[in-house]
Structure formats: C-alpha cells, structure tokens
C-alpha cells in the first residue's frame, strides 16, 4: 500500500508515521485514519519495529477531523461509515506509541494524541477539543480519555468551552509528559523511543497492556491481570538475561524471547 496522507519512515527499531496534509493542517479525514491504521498494522507484525512515533509537522499535529466530511452528513451515514472502527485498532496496537506534538492538536487530533501511550509536546503545541463550536462534541474518545488524563473538572472546561490550552498548561494538567523546545521535538521523541526500544520487548508489551487495563477494570481485576502478566514474564529468556546481567554488573542483551 502506498500512502498519500502520511509519510512513513523506518529507522530500526523506530518507525515514524508523519501525518502529511500540510494544506489542511493535517486534518484527519477517513483516508488519513485508514492509512495510519494500515501503517500500524504493518509495524505490528514487523519484529524490527519496537516503538512507533506518531507526529505531524511544526504547524500542526492534527487540527481536527476533516470538517468537509461532516457537512450535510446524517446520523445513518455516520453510523454506516464505521469511521470510529479504526480508532479501536489504535487502542489495541501492542507496541509503545509515542505522540510527538507540535502546533495545533485539536479535536480528533487531540483524541489521536491521547490514544497514544506517551505525549511529548513542543513549546508551540496547543491542545483542545473545540467540537462544541460546531454544534458537536468529541466523538473519538475525547470525553473519556480527557477525564482520565486531566480529571473531570478540567475536562469539562476544555470540552464545554472549546478553548485550547498551550503546551505548558497541558503539562501542568498532566495531559503531556514533557514540553521541549519546538526544534528539539523529534530528537527528543527519537531519544525516548530508542530508550524504550532497548528494553526487553515482551516485558514492555505486557507492561503496556497492564497499564491499559488500569483504565478499564476495577482495581481487584487490574491487580489480578497484572499478576498474571508478571508471572508470564518468568517464561521469557529476557528475564533470565536481565537478572543475570544485573547481578554480573554488565549491560543486558535482550533478544525479545
């Protein structure tokens, strides 16, 4: 599959998906979402890929959904398009997904960033859910993920006013991991991705799954799930290697087994 709306680069073990629709500030139309998911599916089965970076360009990560697709659309059409099905594929992507956000990160763009595991923000980034200004509301996870990220009251303010917040505030509210100078965004994202990629991939994958379960299940179920995955890691060669290397005071060599 050749991509039009995204650019994909692979520098093993890091894959980067760059949303590339600069004329529309990387608005997410259906094709863009299809391509992002197609790229993720390719990386999911590629063992050489350990971490995926999702980014836009300096002006915009993604300024929102492509409004033109909503014009004149009725509920039946929206339902039959299954447009949110792809979003579930992002949620179940098993490898770490790092969002590197510069510029506008609004509406569907903000929801897409929140669907990632880690968010790095450039100093010029702006986050918001402005759907209410169009007589709409977030439809791809905004109301659910924002509450979990920043708490009910801040989520209410962001979604009910539609007013975006700058990167520093997003950091103070706990929406993003870090704010870095705009010019350094991709360097920092790659450094972080490489750091994670050097860890044993099965442990990373299980840890990600367990953390995601924390958002889904009650504590007792989550703890049980965590314990099962913890036991599972005792079946890996990487666990033996990690412990041997630690005791021998040498760097570990993980093989993903």
């Amino acid at each position: 599959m050749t991509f039009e709306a995204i650019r994909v680069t692979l520098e093993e073990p890091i894959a980067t998906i760059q949303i590339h629709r600069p004329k529309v500030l990387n608005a997410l139309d259906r094709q863009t979402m299809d391509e992002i998911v197609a790229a993720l599916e390719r990386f999911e089965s590629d063992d050489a890929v350990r971490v995926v970076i999702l980014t836009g360009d300096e002006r915009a990560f993604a300024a929102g959904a492509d409004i033109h697709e909503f014009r004149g659309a009725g509920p039946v059409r929206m339902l039959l398009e299954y447009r949110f099905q792809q979003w579930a594929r992002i949620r179940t992507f098993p490898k770490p997904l790092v969002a590197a956000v510069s510029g506008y990160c609004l509406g569907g763009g903000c929801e897409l960033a929140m669907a990632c595991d880690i968010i790095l923000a450039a100093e010029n980034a702006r986050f918001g859910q402005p759907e209410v200004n169009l007589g709409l509301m977030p439809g791809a996870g905004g109301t659910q993920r924002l509450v979990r990220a920043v708490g009910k009251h801040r989520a209410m303010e962001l979604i009910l006013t539609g007013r975006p917040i700058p990167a520093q505030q997003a950091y103070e509210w706990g929406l993003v991991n870090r704010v870095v100078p705009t010019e350094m965004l991709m360097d920092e994202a790659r450094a972080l991705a490489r750091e994670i990629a050097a860890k044993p991939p099965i442990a990373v994958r299980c840890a990600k799954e367990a953390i995601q379960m924390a958002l889904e299940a009650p504590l007792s179920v989550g703890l049980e799930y965590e314990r099962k995955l913890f036991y599972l890691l005792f079946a890996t060669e990487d666990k033996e290697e990690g412990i041997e290397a630690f005791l021998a005071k040498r760097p570990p060599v993980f093989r993903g087994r």
Partner: protein
Amino acid sequence: MDAFETILLETRDGVRTITLNRPEVLNAFNDRMLIELRQALREAERDEAVRCVVLTGAGRAFSSGQDLRARTEPFSFAAHLRAHYNPLILQVRSMEKPVLAAVNGVAAGAGCSLALACDLRIASTQAQFIEVFSRVGLVPDSGSTYFLARLVGIGKALELCLLAEPVGAEEALRLGLVNWVAPPEELMGRTMEIATRLAQGPTRAYGLTKRAFLHTLQADLASTLEYEAMLQEIAGRTEDHREGLAAFFEKRAPRFTGR
C-alpha cells in the same frame, strides 16, 4: 492593515526602529497604537532581514501609558488588558531577536511596563520612569510587577509602585532599571551603535538565550540545566556557531548571518 498612523518605522543595518508617534499626547496608548505596535512587532519578528528591534518615542516622552481619554464605555480593565497589553508584553518578551528600548523621556504606567519588558534599556538623561498607577487608584499592570520585582527586588519595587515617584535616569542606572544612560543628543546615536552590533550578532543564539531566561524564571536548577542542554543542541547546529568556531580558529572576526 492600512498604513500605520500612530507609529513610525525605519530599518537600517538590520535594525528596525519602531517610534511611538503621538507626541501631542506624550505617546499615550490608544487602541489603534496598541494594535499597530503589535502588528509592527509581528512584521519585525517575521522579517529575516531584521535582526534587532529598537522601541523609542517621538517628542518629549517615551510613552505616558494608557490614554485615559481613549476609554470607551462600558470599560472592562481586565478585558482591555487581555486584548491589548498582555499579548503586547508577551510578544516583546518572546520575540527571538534583541529588543532595545531607547527611553527618550518619560515612561509612565504601561509605557514604563513596555520599556521594562524590553531586553535592554538605554535612557536619556531626561528620561523618567514612573509607576504612576497608584496616583489614580490603580495597580501596576502590563507586567510592571513582574519586571520590577526581578530587576530591582521586591522592596524597591513596592516603593516605586506605592509612592509613584519619578525615577530619573541616573537613579535608574544605579538601581539596574536601565543598562546605559546618554545625553539626549547622543541617545539615538548610542542606541544605534548597540543595536547595530546586536544586529550583526548570532541572532538565533540571542533568541535562544532569551528563551532560556524566560524558562528559568519559572523553573528550578535541574529543569534549567535540562533546558539549556536542549537549547545548546539547537544553537550548536546553527550556521552562526560554525562560523563563530571557524573565525575563532582562524583568528578573525566572525561574520554572523543570523541563521
């Protein structure tokens, strides 16, 4: 936007001079002037040929602050500050080029704030800084409390704001409110000397230096060290750094281009 009515622009040797030009009211700010000033700063920011900005006033004053006659009813102080002054002050502070205030006369109220928001200040011996707000029962705005607390310390800052007495050029120099003082007839010559020198400097590194100070005013040491490391990475990739290094080894003066 139509041609500027309330400010004058001049560009020479990479220096854009913006002159507040309502001398009949001591360059008091009305909405038009505030809008034009922000537009002029935006243009200076975008224009790569501009590598240093000078702010000064026409006539006797730098600026006497908000034009109290220009207030439209019903008036909200907060809304007016948010719409005009706050973005202006942030714009000056975040501009990634040196901004120099040539304070030719009185700088009162928001006019004083604007001068303090600039990176460097050169004052005429006729200059006066007055935190005039309390005389009319108001509080310092447009960043005056922020800048004063940091430039002169909170004790002196409170004195200047509560008593609202004028601070002359020599005292301003002693307090650290200004960097240099010059006789009126030499003010613009001396200003242009400094500004031209800055305009021939490593503009990117200057911009990043400003950013580092903005950051550290709200950060701890660990975070500042981390931020400096990232900014150095950016500066280290500029043409100006390569040029500076080459000039150093070749024992010649560097020719910085601002890239």
